[in-house]
């Protein structure tokens, strides 16, 4: 795991402490990341607001330096249903 993936993971966890966070650098280029975030706190929240909750702290931390992050957010229930 590169420093940046670790850093992204820590920032997300800092904002949503109870979350399960997986961050990947699929092209191994240190620029295009994928993150999957599963959290109970997403229950009842629209997908837009779930994404905002993750992106906002990252935006503050990277001030636009984070080139691309493909984000997937799930409630635990929804995550379980995708793993069927």
């Amino acid at each position, binding site marked *: 795991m590169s420093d940046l993936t670790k850093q992204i993971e820590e920032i997300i966890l800092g904002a949503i402490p109870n979350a399960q966070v997986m961050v990947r650098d699929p092209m191994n280029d240190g620029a295009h990341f994928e993150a999957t975030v599963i959290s109970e706190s997403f229950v009842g929240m629209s997908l*837009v607001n779930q*994404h905002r909750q993750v992106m906002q702290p990252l935006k503050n931390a990277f001030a636009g330096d984070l080139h691309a992050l493909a*984000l997937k957010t799930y409630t635990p229930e929804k995550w379980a249903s995708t793993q069927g």
Partner: protein
Amino acid sequence: MTITERIQNDIDTNRVMLFMKGIPEAPMCGFSKSVVDILKHLDVDFASANVLEHMELREGIKEFSDWPTIPQLYVDGKFIGGCDITVEMFQSGELQPLLQVKDA
């Protein structure tokens, strides 16, 4: 009319409103095209605004929605999301009831 008023008017007067790069017949960005493709596939009537023709709109819509990227889809005056979220909601079947179309 300020840019905020223009955007508010767009989403108030069009049930399904897409802020995009290009026009539905000729999207200028793959992400905008994906959202257009979904709306067309679901046979939804929608209005669109081309942010490339209007720099003030391009920046204004990001601020209005507090969302950093384009396209942006509004339904019934409510911000749904950008390309990723729209595609995900289409695939999961959550988008169809919002647009009041049958599961396609």
